[in-house]
């Protein structure tokens, strides 16, 4: 039985800086033992001298504390999610202003003060401060996600303002990252916005992506999409993917090991075959739908609630106003995450896609 274990920020460096690790076992005790043998440093944190879980650490199975289930004997099924949550002593306490600002979240039992602190401790990287990145960054900032990274190197163009809600009329000509940061901080000065103002490449992706817990993809080109997919897989980071064209949108979540963008689309189309939004157009409000869905998926991953879009691809048709879901599987033949992988490090994506990284990120 393989289950995913959520590692909270204070313990993450003890587990290879991963947000989720997989572990084996038919009940909670076995999984904790397996976790401890895989990460010896973590073992000292989750077991005391008598091999019991210390009182200041709670273990959750699918968001239920195990003492309300069958303790360490709680049986597990494939796909269950375990979380190891320490009491945060003397750590981040919500201020009066934060309690008021986030009250509509905090009053929901699925969030609560613990969830709000998870949001404030979370680090999310957004690729592209454009149509999709705008609404997703906005809702994460409003929710108090502590660190929001923005990767873009374009400047705001008048034609962006039909949909890119992070940028205002006066921002035309400014770098998108700066405009995005100013807008986000004007909505919520409580968050930390980190700017990555250079093209994402095979050289810098593995420096930037591992600094974050979750990545949201709002890139507008295949070259960046394959690069981000591979880098997230190597860094073990969940990737919340979204894309749009005309009146259609797609969204999904790639959890490393459960399928990736290459499993969905093994190769990019030849350059020029699938038009981009500049060539074909896109309904502005559609970016709000898909970008908001990406924000929701990121918030759910941080809060460990609900069922993510992992293993499912959501299709939205704005003209017929139909949402559909199709299955997305890990492809055993995937060169990245399949049974016999051939891609072991970042490759030359310009060559792979037959198209350069765009001179503008454009997203």
């Amino acid at each position: 039985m393989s289950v995913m274990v959520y590692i909270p920020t204070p313990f993450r460096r003890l587990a290879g800086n991963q947000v989720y690790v997989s572990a084996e076992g038919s009940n909670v005790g076995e999984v904790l033992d397996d976790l401890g043998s895989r990460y010896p440093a973590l073992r000292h944190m989750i077991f005391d001298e008598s091999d019991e879980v210390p009182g200041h650490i709670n273990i959750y199975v699918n968001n239920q504390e195990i003492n309300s289930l069958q303790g360490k004997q709680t049986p597990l099924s494939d796909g269950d999610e375990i979380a190891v949550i320490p009491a945060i002593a003397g750590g981040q306490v919500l201020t009066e202003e934060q309690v008021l600002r986030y009250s509509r979240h905090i009053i929901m039992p699925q969030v609560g003060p613990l969830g709000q602190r998870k949001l404030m401790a979370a680090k999310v990287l957004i690729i592209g401060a454009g149509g999709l990145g705008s609404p997703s960054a906005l809702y994460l900032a409003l929710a108090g996600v502590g660190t929001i990274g923005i990767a873009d190197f374009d400047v705001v163009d008048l034609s962006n303002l039909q949909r890119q809600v992070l940028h205002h009329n006066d921002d035309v000509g400014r770098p998108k990252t700066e405009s995005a940061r100013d807008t986000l901080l004007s909505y919520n000065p409580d968050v930390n916005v980190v700017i990555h103002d250079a093209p994402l490449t095979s050289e810098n992706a593995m420096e930037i992506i591992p600094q974050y817990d979750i990545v949201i993809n709002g890139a507008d080109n295949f070259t960046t999409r394959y690069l981000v997919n591979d880098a997230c897989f190597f860094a073990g980071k969940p990737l919340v993917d979204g894309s749009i064209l005309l009146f259609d949108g797609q969204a999904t979540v790639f959890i490393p090991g459960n399928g990736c963008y290459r499993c969905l689309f093994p190769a990019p189309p030849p350059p020029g075959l699938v038009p981009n939004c500049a060539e074909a157009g896109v309904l502005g409000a559609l970016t709000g739908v898909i970008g908001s869905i990406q924000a929701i998926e990121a918030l759910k991953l941080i809060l460990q609630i609900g069922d993510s879009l992992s293993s499912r691809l959501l299709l939205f048709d704005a003209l017929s106003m139909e949402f559909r879901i199709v299955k997305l599987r890990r492809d055993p033949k995937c060169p990245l995450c399949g049974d016999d992988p051939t891609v072991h490090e970042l490759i030359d994506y310009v060559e792979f896609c037959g198209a350069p990284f765009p001179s503008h990120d454009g997203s």
Partner: protein
Amino acid sequence: MTVEVKVTANLQKMVGGKRSVQAEGASVRELLDDLDSRYPGFKSQIVTDGQIHRFVNIYLNDEDIRFLDKLDTPLKEGDTLSILPALAGGSGLP
């Protein structure tokens, strides 16, 4: 065998701008041949040398036909086929 075919995004221009067309065939391959006879050039957008393009996915109901019998996947009355090309758009170049 009549099957509803949902066509996404840029493929719609191949079928006169429609988002959904009816087509006939006992397998995905026959159905694409039927569409190609009525919308010349449609099949070549999806298949080359008998292989589905790797940037196009075809779903029978909610299942990717790559994990069924690919082009030989049998169809039955009332099925829905969705043809979905990879989209890269995050918002578009200025």
